[in-house]
């Protein structure tokens, strides 16, 4: 074993990925396998799972038990809620959002995918590409995830057949031709037996690519938010009210994208008031430049009325849109359908307002990707293009340009539940 190096640890990249598949595609088993074969399982965890497997009468260690954290999940053998897992190899650190495939599947998958840079879609080799496979791939595309890994699982149950693998790959390619991923990879695996998950399999000599882990260690990590125009959303106003810091007023927030420097000519939106950056504070330091995703605080030259949700941008860069009307691709996440004229609270960046549903443009058939006329109502797990009208101006970019400033959630005023997730078109 190589000695542990703190320097190497700090320099490691972080890949956030999500997994999607329908019930019984073996998602939990795959994650259990990844953790087990990368030696990320501790002795006491292994002991507990081995005991539970014997108790259930399983012939082999039930790898799914590593991730099914809730009692009812272990009892029913299904995954209910999004779970987050952490593991690392000498090359990278990984955060997995494990999203369940059954009821509330869209809601769970959108949740897991919203912070991910790669998605693994699982296909049961016996069943091939089914409706849910297409739905998962479409959602990953809609959420702007650049890297898609298609794992054809349970190859052991189709005699490790190269023909079967090719057949599934071709049918997936036909469907995916309308989706905008940077890269799509195909890996034949057996999560149960461990083929091509961490170690390459000797049962599929016809497969020339790397194992799933090789891919996860090699695919591009990041969305390059720093090359986008600067967006700084004001989160909280810091006012110490002390003799030492009399009249001190700093705007705390996070760099959503781009870079800012002291001296930069800026505009505060939506007020459209120009100013200049006097100082940037990062705890006891005054950095010469800050970039996404740093959390810092900013002091301006001028005394302006700025509050939570306002956005500071550079005068010489492309400005975000400022409007009370937005067109959004909306995923509905609540059992009660969304109806025309209904009112909700919208959260866009750190801005909060009330919105009313003005118009349904079309609904998406996630199996064919066709646009459908709607019955002017949106049910759970459905996706539609809608027009929302807000009580206050929103400050946004299209989601395909900037994930941070282009996303919204809708909240039901009566229940306070998060009922919808939207990606702004314009």
């Amino acid at each position, binding site marked *: 074993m190589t000695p*542990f190096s*703190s320097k190497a*640890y*700090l*320099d*490691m990249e972080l890949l956030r990925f999500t997994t999607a598949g329908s019930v019984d595609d073996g998602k939990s088993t795959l994650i259990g396998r990844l953790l087990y074969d990368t030696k990320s399982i*501790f*002795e*006491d*965890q292994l002991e*507990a799972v081995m005991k*539970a497997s014997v108790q259930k009468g399983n012939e082999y260690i039930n790898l799914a038990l*590593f*991730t*099914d*954290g*809730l*009692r009812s999940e*272990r009892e029913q053998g299904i995954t209910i*809620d*999004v*779970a*987050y*897992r*952490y593991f690392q190899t000498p090359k990278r650190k990984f*955060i997995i959002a494990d999203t369940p495939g059954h009821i509330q599947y869209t*809601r*769970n998958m*959108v*949740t897991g995918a919203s912070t991910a840079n790669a998605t693994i879609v699982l296909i049961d080799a016996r069943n091939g590409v089914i409706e849910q496979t297409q739905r998962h791939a479409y959602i990953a595309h809609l959420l702007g995830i650049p890297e898609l890994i298609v794992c054809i699982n349970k190859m052991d149950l189709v005699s490790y057949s190269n023909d079967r693998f090719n057949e599934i790959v071709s049918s997936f390619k036909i469907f995916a031709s309308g989706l905008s991923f940077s890269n799509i990879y195909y890996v034949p695996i057996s999560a149960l037996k461990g083929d091509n998950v961490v170690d390459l399999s000797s049962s599929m000599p016809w497969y020339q690519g790397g194992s799933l882990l090789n891919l996860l260690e090699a695919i591009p990590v990041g969305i*390059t938010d*720093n*090359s986008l125009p600067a967006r700084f959303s004001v*989160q*909280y106003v*810091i006012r*110490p009210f*002390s003799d030492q*810091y009399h009249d001190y007023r700093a705007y*705390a*927030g*996070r760099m959503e994208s781009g*870079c800012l420097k002291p001296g930069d000519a800026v505009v505060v939106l939506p007020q459209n008031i120009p100013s200049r950056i006097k100082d940037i504070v990062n*705890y006891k330091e005054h950095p010469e*430049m800050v970039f996404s*995703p*740093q*959390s810092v605080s900013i002091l301006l030259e001028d005394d302006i009325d700025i509050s939570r949700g306002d956005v500071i941008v550079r005068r010489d860069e492309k400005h975000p849109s400022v409007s009370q009307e937005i067109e959004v691709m909306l995923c509905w996440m609540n059992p009660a359908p969304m109806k025309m004229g209904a009112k909700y609270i919208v*959260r866009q*960046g*750190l801005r909060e307002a009330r919105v009313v549903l003005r118009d349904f443009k079309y609904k998406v058939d996630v199996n064919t990707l066709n646009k459908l006329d709607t019955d002017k109502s949106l049910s759970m797990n459905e996706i539609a293009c809608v027009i929302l009208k807000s009580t206050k101006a929103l400050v946004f970019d299209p989601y395909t340009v900037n*994930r*941070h400033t282009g*996303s*919204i*959630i809708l*909240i039901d005023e009566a229940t*306070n539940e*998060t009922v919808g*997730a939207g990606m702004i078109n314009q």
Partner: protein
Amino acid sequence: MNNHKLNHLRELESESIFVIREVAAQFERPVMLFSGGKDSIVMVHLALKAFYPAPLPFPLMHIDTGHNFEETIEYRDKLVKETGSRLIVASVQESINNGRAIEEKGFNASRNILQTVTLLDAIESNKFDAAMGGARRDEEKARAKERFFSHRDEFGQWDPKNQRPELWNIFNGRKHMGEHFRVFPISNWTEMDVWQYILMEGIEMPSIYFTHKRKVFNRDGVLLAWAPFMFLKENEEAIEMDVRCRTIGDISCTGLSLSSADNLEDIIVEIAATKVTERGSRFDDKRSDAAMEDRKKEGYF
């Protein structure tokens, strides 16, 4: 000019500061829970950074079981004094005295579960609407299901099967009267991240994390610290050994490990090589496979 990158610890730091600021912005009466353990120490450090140069816009609260390591209390009081923070101590002993909680009996008696009563009472009497905690998702399988913003009903209960979806970095902290939120700013940190961060930032730690001589006894493979209120079984004997804490909880449930690590670098090497989870030495989690889930549903940290 446009390819600046944060290393992953700075990325986690930024995410946590963002979450802590969201709490200050979205809630009227937030509080930060402080146990004196490494995770809450890191969380307080992040909070100080989040609002610098202003003081913390919320108090710290310690749920005191009365069975503390002395060093933890010394560290707590020093931190509060140096940072000018407000500290609220909610006492489990008081909950027992006024009949709200009943002391467990037997050799493995612990006040760990009783903390839930004291915590929920303190949240209610202080009218807190958000309580930040240092729990991490990698600690335990029920915690892996937690949100950053975790909604609690008017009884303080967690309903893991009906959680609000949490999308991008948009946190929905809206609630009805009487309900509150638990917020976990360091959800995405691992045990190794916490120690690396302590090293990187030069954060001072309580002395019991480093090797020291202490009277301990072996119970079911876990080394527990001897204290006047700990009853030994016939076959158990308290012997002085070189030990340190990997996690810090109440004395009655915190396992110690044999170690000669007297500095952060050695602790990190030790953790990189360990074969058991940090909660593997916690007696409170050994009670059943769903011990943590059951406690969390009732309102535990």
